[in-house]
């Protein structure tokens, strides 16, 4: 009996300890940090939070994150943000960080997620070298893009950087020719030929060219744009108020009108002639 009691207590304790461990178990949170510099203007940082749930990675919304420059000491705090439904948190690098930013040609950014019931505190960092992209065009529709990096205080060409030259469209970018990616030469430049002659532009035929460096280990994400009049002019043709089956009253399709009115005229013509027949019968009756 005593032996059974021991066994029962051991099992009970095991169950309790498993339950406690289960309660304390937290998922691993994976944080990544990306640096963006669009059009050499205001730079911003994007943190991605994801975790493996049910055997697959899922974006985690609602994670409080803090962004830092250089290191995660409180004095270097750039700002705080919360991840959205896509697990992304954004932060524009504030003007207050200018002094720290100007100190060096290379910078380190750190993102730290706040510990919660589900996730432990997690850190991620990104080291970047300050760089910029320039884009230029010629009259014979050639595009030249140059990547420059900051060395001490001077901008020097960056060699061997993968670069995309594309046309900016609503749902994504369209390559200017069959080449997907270009690599900069010793002058930090690439040249691409524009081969999308019939692409629709705006009302003046303007299209936006974009040169971008994506997820580069050294420079982060860089892009620059230029508007050129190389597209075909967009002619806006309004189909509002045309004759359709779904148009307003009076704007019915001609074929419908012809068919419907023909039927009405023929049928009612017959009926009216039959009314005259009654009148004829009446007259014949009065003559008798």
């Amino acid at each position, binding site marked *: 009996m005593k032996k059974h009691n021991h066994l029962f207590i051991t099992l009970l304790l095991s169950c309790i300890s498993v339950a406690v461990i289960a309660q304390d178990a937290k998922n691993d949170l994976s944080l990544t940090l990306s640096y963006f510099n669009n059009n050499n203007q205001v730079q911003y940082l994007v943190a991605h939070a994801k975790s493996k749930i049910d055997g697959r990675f899922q974006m985690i919304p609602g994670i409080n994150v803090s962004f830092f420059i250089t290191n995660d000491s409180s004095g270097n705090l750039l700002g705080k943000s919360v991840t959205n439904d896509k697990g992304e948190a954004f932060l524009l690098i504030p003007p207050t960080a200018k002094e720290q930013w100007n100190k060096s040609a290379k910078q380190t950014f750190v993102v730290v997620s706040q510990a919660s019931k589900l996730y432990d505190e997690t850190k991620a960092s990104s080291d970047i070298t300050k760089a910029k992209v320039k884009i230029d065009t010629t009259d014979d529709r050639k595009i030249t893009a140059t990547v420059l990096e900051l060395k001490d205080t001077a901008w020097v060409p960056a060699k061997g950087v993968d670069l995309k030259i594309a046309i900016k469209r609503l749902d994504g970018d369209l390559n200017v020719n069959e080449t997907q990616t270009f690599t900069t030469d010793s002058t930090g430049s690439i040249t691409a030929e524009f081969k999308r002659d019939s692409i629709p532009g705006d009302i003046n035929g303007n299209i936006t060219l974009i040169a971008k460096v994506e997820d580069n280990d050294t420079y982060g994400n860089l892009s620059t744009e230029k508007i050129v009049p190389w597209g075909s002019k967009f002619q806006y043709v309004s189909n509002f108020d045309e004759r359709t089956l779904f148009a*307003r*009253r009076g704007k*019915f399709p001609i074929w*419908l009108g012809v068919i419907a009115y023909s039927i009405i005229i023929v*049928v*009612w013509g017959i009926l009216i002639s*039959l009314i005259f027949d009654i009148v004829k*019968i009446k007259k014949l009756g009065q003559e*008798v």
Partner: protein
Amino acid sequence: MENSAKQKITEDLLPQKFGKQGKIWVAFLLILCIIGFIAYCRQLSKGLIVTSMRDYVSWGIYISNFVFFVAISLVGSLITAVLRLTNVEWSTPLTRIAEIISVAAITFAAIIIVVDMGRPDRFYNLFIHGRLQSPIIWDVIVITTYFFISILLLYFPLLPDLQILLRFKEKTGNGLNKLYKFLGSFWKNTPAQIKISNKAISILCITIIPIAFAIHTVTSWLFATTYRPGWDSTNFGAYFISGAFLVGAGGVVVAMYVFRKHYKLEKYITEDHFDKMGKVLVMLALLYLYFNINEFLVPAFKMKKSEKEHLIGLFTGEFAVVFWFAITTAMILPILILILKKGRKPFPAFIAGTLVVIGSWVKRYLIVTPTLLHPFLPMQDVPNEYRHYFPSWEEWAIAIGSLAGALLIITLFARIFPIIPIHETITETEEHEKA
């Protein structure tokens, strides 16, 4: 043919005054109409909120009733036009019954549409601002046309009978005699008049067939041009027309039995008529059953997600009892009864006809309501009453009142005019004797 024989036919077929049963029947119908009218007055003063129609079920029992009336009105074209054009002589005693059913039904189809409107005072806007592209406008045009043709088709064959009726002033009374004079005193049975009248009847018989097809096809398009589970079908026009012929023929068989029994017309509406109409009814029931199988089996085989809930609701769910009741009473039982020779005797045929009419009314309800309760987007955050539909007492009263109104028109017509054409019966008898 001897004059005494003609006299006998005429006397047999003259309209008869209401007996005790007839008066009770008229009073009963009048009471139902008055209750319906009171309910409609309540609806007019309080608005459509007195009905059970809400955001989802915006077409309830009124539109079901409308479709039923339109369907039964099709019988005019079947019995009068199709059978007349194909020289089916046995149909003569049934033509006027069919025509008056048509007129009564199409009249109340038009009325019930106005009843369904929340603001009937704005009805005229349908004509002023109607869009030619809308099947609703086509329905308005085609119903008006069909009503007009039905009235003419009732009137032209009535002219020779009016002349006969004028000779029986003592029997018919002064009031009715004035009416007969107004309607047909000019008919002198001259060859020229007969020629014009026969030509007019032939033209009407030809015209009414496409219009009859159009009226029910357009009514089906009110549903089929809407993208909804249960209505999204290319089969709908033919499905509606076959159903309309069935209910119309069923209605004629019921009316044949009632008039035969009440006015003692056994010599004119014979067992042979029931036998033939029974065969017609079986054929139409089989045809409608075929269309029903098409209409339900094909989507059920695919069971698309959007259709699934609606179909399961009909087969085994909320509407299963009503659905199988409609299929059984409108098609299966009438086929089983009428396929046997004994089943085509007057009384069993009357039972089969009644089943067809009742089942067909329920079938129209099933065409309208379950679809509206199964929209593509799920019903969310709505009161529970929006999720189900059961007509309020006002809706029942108005619907029953309208059915009573249609029966009242038929009853009063039979009181005023001969329900079996006298002149045609005499002419045909003479022709038979000559032959």
